């Protein structure tokens, strides 16, 4: 079923011949708007990857669009998966995370002729004319997260923080470093323990790691995890430790309870992109950079702020947003 054929039939000749620019959101002009989402992770992880799909679905429901979602796409399968997605007559191919960047060459293949693409960026991604890159700097959000945690720690007189994550990989090590740097902005003498459980989804191990940290007197614990986040947070709650969210705003959650929401959820960025897309305003071949303190996301939120905590955090984020603070340098200095 060559969608090119379908598309050319369906596209009214009157639409102006400006073939170079595709009309959004019904890019292929088949009268329906279909967004295909490919995610490298489990799209039901109640966390990072799920948020991407959830916001797409919520938005699509508002607009009456269709979402086709596919989770757990191995990077090695990305290209094939994207081509397959294009064959479903989608108007947009949205990749959930930069691991799937290997799929982008398909955006220039005929099978994906009438599509636009969305990809959370990573630095060494080739820029394709039909792809919108969406970038944020994890240093910013994690630094601010640390700052928020630091405020809480200072108030309570804590100096020890804990960071629990799955695999030891550069992104998780970086996140930990930035988080610690943020804490030290407020509590210069703070120390931090990083524990790698070996598996983002192994709840039992995440709990044990949390327990171990609590028993060492650690009172602020960041479960930077996937499926195991809630279990670890629950444990932290029981042990009286403060917790942060890895990516989404869960201040409303009561079980487990979170104290700080660190919001860098790919879904939020994506939703913003979808809004532009709905208005035929998406700029392909560009990179949209999301900046802490400027854009609504990424952001950090103290769930139950006391005193001037919220203001101080806001100011800190503003400073980052106005480049008064260079996150990378700070992380290097303090992490």
């Amino acid at each position: 079923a060559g969608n090119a054929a379908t598309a050319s039939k369906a596209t009214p000749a009157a639409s102006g011949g400006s073939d170079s620019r595709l009309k959004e959101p019904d890019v292929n002009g088949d009268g329906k708007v279909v967004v295909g989402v490919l995610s490298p992770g489990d799209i039901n992880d109640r966390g990072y990857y799920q948020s991407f799909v959830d916001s797409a679905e919520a938005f699509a429901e508002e607009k009456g669009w269709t979402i086709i979602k596919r989770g757990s796409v191995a990077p090695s399968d990305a290209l094939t998966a994207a081509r397959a997605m294009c064959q479903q007559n989608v108007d947009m191919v949205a990749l959930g995370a930069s691991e799937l960047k290997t799929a982008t060459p398909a955006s220039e293949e005929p099978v994906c002729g009438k599509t636009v693409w969305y990809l959370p960026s990573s630095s060494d991604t080739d820029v394709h004319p039909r792809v919108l890159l969406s970038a944020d700097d994890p240093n910013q959000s994690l630094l601010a997260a640390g700052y928020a945690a630091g405020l809480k720690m200072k108030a309570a007189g804590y100096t020890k923080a804990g960071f629990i994550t799955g695999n030891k990989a550069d992104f998780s090590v970086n996140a930990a470093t930035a988080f610690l740097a943020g804490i030290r902005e407020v509590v210069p003498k703070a120390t931090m323990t990083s524990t790698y459980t070996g598996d983002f989804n192994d709840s039992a191990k995440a709990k044990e790691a949390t327990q171990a940290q609590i028993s060492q007197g650690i009172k602020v614990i960041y479960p930077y995890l996937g499926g195991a986040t809630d279990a670890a947070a629950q444990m932290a709650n029981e042990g009286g430790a403060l917790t942060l969210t890895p990516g989404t705003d869960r201040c409303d959650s009561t079980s487990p309870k979170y104290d700080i929401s660190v919001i860098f959820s790919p879904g939020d960025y994506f939703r913003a992109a979808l809004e532009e897309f709905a208005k035929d305003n998406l700029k392909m071949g560009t990179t949209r950079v999301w900046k802490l303190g400027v854009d609504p996301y990424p952001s950090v939120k103290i769930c139950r702020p006391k005193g001037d905590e919220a203001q101080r955090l806001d100011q800190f984020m503003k400073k980052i947003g106005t480049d008064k603070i260079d996150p990378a340098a700070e992380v290097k200095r303090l992490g």
Partner: protein
Amino acid sequence: MSVLDSTSTILASGVRLTVPLAFAACGEYLAERAGAMNISVEAMMLSAAFTSVATASATGSATVGLMAGVLTGLVVGFVHGNLSHRAQINTFVVGLVLNALVLGLTSYLITTEQFASHQVGVLSIPLLEDIPLIGKPLFSERWPAYLLILLVPLTWWLVERSRWGLELRAVGENPQAADVTGIKVNARRRQALLWCGALAGLGGAYLAVGEVGSFNQNMTAGRGYLVIAAVIFGAWRLGRTMLGCLVFGLSDAMRLALPALGVTLNAQLLVAAPYLLALLAMLLFTTQHREPAALGRPFERGST
């Protein structure tokens, strides 16, 4: 915090990580003594973890959830048994397929349901829990953990002392001879798999409604394979298999606790440690093996 306290904490954590493994390993041990090597322990544990949480959520009782988990493990054991020891499909194929099937099914089902969190209660044994160092780790556990005290000797008794166990061992050693003696070889293996399923189910359920209190995708994270490694590490002796589980549990606990104590070790090496240990045990203690002679060999009448 004192060294004693840290040790006690690590011990406690190790025991908690051991318990699910120990339940399942008890079952796998018995199955392997009957010559049935099933790699579907993972499927048994994972499916049980799921149903236990689902049932607990539906009934509001973690205990009922636990029982549902046992039942689920039993069902997986039943399916595996019938496919590989009645229909005679290669037991590895069956295991691989069941593992994939259960992973897929549970992953799918959690997308459609939300479950309330339930956890079985902690039972502390007065006086004993006050023993320094080991009091808390051993005598202040979620109550099903104490079932091990019952189930390990029971498994041992079943294998070593009961008629059923005698027949299981005969079947694991020499199915042809057992058959001639009038033992229904494949029936015994299927029964062994039921026991294995029930115990692995208990292990999975304990993990979910005992330790964690919720279910998440692939939450057993390869524990089923670890259990097989434990039986190998234990050289097909129950005591050592349990020791193997404890070693794996403790090494995980150490791994998770050491960073908090200021020590870091290579992550990959630590994840690989149990498998490495099992291999080393096989390499070093070959003479003490009680490996069933017909382990993993299908039995059919008339074949030699």
